[in-house]
């Protein structure tokens, strides 16, 4: 800061940095200290090095947890920031997965798969927009939104489970009922010779890159003016309406963004396992995003990512019969004892511990349970 007026190239570089900072940092996210970004860089470096250390099999396994992180982020935006508890993020996840499967099986060229990738995300967003329009413009509020989204997952589960017959074949792609759709091609992006196909390690890096971009992009989003309106809707709908904002439109757009993110997750999921089945609409799976986001801290994006990857890693490693007992207990403990979630709690503890220099921004920050 002291060199601001001295060096020739100083002001412009410094200017870029403050602009970036203003863009990424604000009252709606935790972590804006130098230490935070240093920690961010260390974790990122560790994740980049992971495939070299652990091998391609482990990297491929780990990329699934990163894929789920998009689903966690989508619920964090919708529930944590805009206050809409959606039990149906898996609807958009699953619809996107199925869309990707149908398009990519029919047109298994790199270009076709690129189109399938985009179509999947668009499918998730469209599904969310339709459901959201139906709910928010119909005046459905609060817990009834949760119930409609929950019931939507059940409808799709019941529906997809009965698509076993021959009449449920779209082009080359059979929907397959309970057995689901196998032989979904790997993700590929690009046209003709310039195309890249992603498998194991390259898929890991693609997902990691997308995740970092998404995380930073969402940070910018929730700290923008639009993000402030989003939080205002969460805090007090009627007052936000009175200030002249169209609450229905805000909710619909947030819900659609959430649908697109969940869709991205679903597309990556389908191409990760080369498989999608009605299991993605099951209640047990539908509840996982709620668990991740509750444990990590619903009002922080970082919490959603950390808890998703952490819980899925543990659940996958524990495996078998004790996994869901552990996850359920974790959820109970957090909802009852620490409703704000893990990441805000750690952050607060760290700020308390440092104690001495609470900057203006940190002291008016509003993270934590309500």
């Amino acid at each position, binding site marked *: 800061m002291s060199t601001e007026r001295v060096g020739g190239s100083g002001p412009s570089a410094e200017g870029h940095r403050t602009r970036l900072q203003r863009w990424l940092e604000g009252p709606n996210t935790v972590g804006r200290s130098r230490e935070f970004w240093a920690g961010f860089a260390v974790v990122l470096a560790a994740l980049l090095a992971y495939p070299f250390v652990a091998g391609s099999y482990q990297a491929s396994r780990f990329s699934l947890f990163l894929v789920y992180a998009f689903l966690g982020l989508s619920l964090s935006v919708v529930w944590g920031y805009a206050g809409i508890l959606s039990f149906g993020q898996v609807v958009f996840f699953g619809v996107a997965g199925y869309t990707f499967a149908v398009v990519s099986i029919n047109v298994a060229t790199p270009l076709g798969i690129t189109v399938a990738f985009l179509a999947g995300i668009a499918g998730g967003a469209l599904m969310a927009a339709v459901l959201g329009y139906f709910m928010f413009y119909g005046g*459905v509020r609060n*817990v*009834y939104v949760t119930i409609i989204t929950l*019931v939507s997952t059940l409808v799709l589960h019941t529906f997809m489970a009965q698509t076993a017959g021959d009449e449920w074949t779209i082009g080359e792609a059979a929907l397959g009922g309970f057995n689901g759709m196998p032989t979904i091609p790997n993700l590929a992006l690009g046209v003709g010779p310039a195309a890249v196909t992603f498998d194991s390690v390259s898929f890991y890096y693609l997902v990691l890159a997308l995740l970092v971009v998404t995380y930073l992009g969402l940070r910018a989003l929730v700290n923008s003016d639009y993000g402030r309106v989003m939080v205002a809707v969460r805090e007090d709908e009627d007052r936000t309406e009175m200030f002249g904002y169209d609450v229905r439109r805000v909710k619909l757009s947030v819900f659609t963004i959430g649908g697109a993110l969940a869709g991205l997750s679903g597309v990556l999921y389908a191409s990760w396992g080369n498989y999608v089945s009605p299991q993605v609409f099951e209640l047990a799976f539908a509840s996982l995003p*709620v668990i991740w986001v509750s444990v990590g801290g619903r009002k922080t994006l970082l919490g959603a990512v950390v808890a998703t990857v952490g819980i899925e890693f543990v659940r996958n490693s524990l495996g078998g019969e004790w996994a869901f*007992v552990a996850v359920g*207990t974790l*959820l109970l403990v957090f909802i009852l004892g620490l409703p704000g979630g893990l990441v805000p709690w750690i952050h607060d503890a760290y700020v308390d511990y440092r104690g001495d220099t609470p900057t203006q921004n940190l002291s008016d920050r509003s993270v934590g349970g309500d």
Partner: protein
Amino acid sequence: MVNGLNLLFQFLDSFAFIVLAAVGLAIIFGIMGVINLAHGEFIMVGAYATTLANIRAGLPLPVAMLVGVVVAAAFGLVVERVIISGSVPNALSQRFLGRVVIEPLYDRLADSMVATWGLSLVMVQGIRITLGNSLDQIGTPLGKIAYSGFSYSTYRVLLAGVAVCLLALTYYVFTRTEYGMRARATIQSEETARALGVDTERTYMTTFAIGSGLAGLTGALYAPTITMVPTLGGSFLVEAFVAVVVGGSSVVLGTLLAGGLLGSINALFSNLVGTFFGRIALLVTAIVMLRFLPNGITGYLEHLRTKRQEGA
């Protein structure tokens, strides 16, 4: 081809299922403002206790059913004390940490859903670990009603009668007894009720135990007709959930009307296009109903009544 008599039996069957599944959930939701997503697992506790009492302990079926009710009610009581009101952990933490750690889940709809969902995960998996993936089943008593090619289980049709009796009993309890009066006072205004000397904490505790006991009764009644797997609660939960939101705030009337409406839709579509579509039609009806009558059928009736009174 729709056969009238067949349709009637199917209606009675799904009416009974929806009402019995919903009644305990509706009571807890209506009075405590708690959505118990572990309701299906409470039904599972009742069904398991009944089956174990009948098959392993050799008790006659009616006694075994009573055991199922009592076990579920007692379990509900423990859950209320430990999780919903948090009073047991809070008493402990007061003693050792000098502060409370849990805020009661009363009237925190979203949090109560998420917390009880956690409980249901633990319960399903806990039962699977301790008792395995399935249990022997009690045979369905009372034989079948048969006529020209169709046959229906007498017992399952009889359950429709039980459902109606249960609703009548619930109505009686909430309108004619001291507990019912206190409970209704607590819904109207918790603060005022407390100021007038109602122990609302005890009302909540009793309500949760009664709701759990009714879940246990549902489990006990259906134990002879369903496959005993740890996930059996799931099929009850969805119907119950949908009936409660479609019915609206009034426990008895709402459950009755929702059971009637959803039961007929389910029976009609199952008959016309198959069981799968019966279920889908039921769920879609619920979504559409919520869109147009966000406060449920009884909420709408209430709205009509106020409008008429204002007009008069």
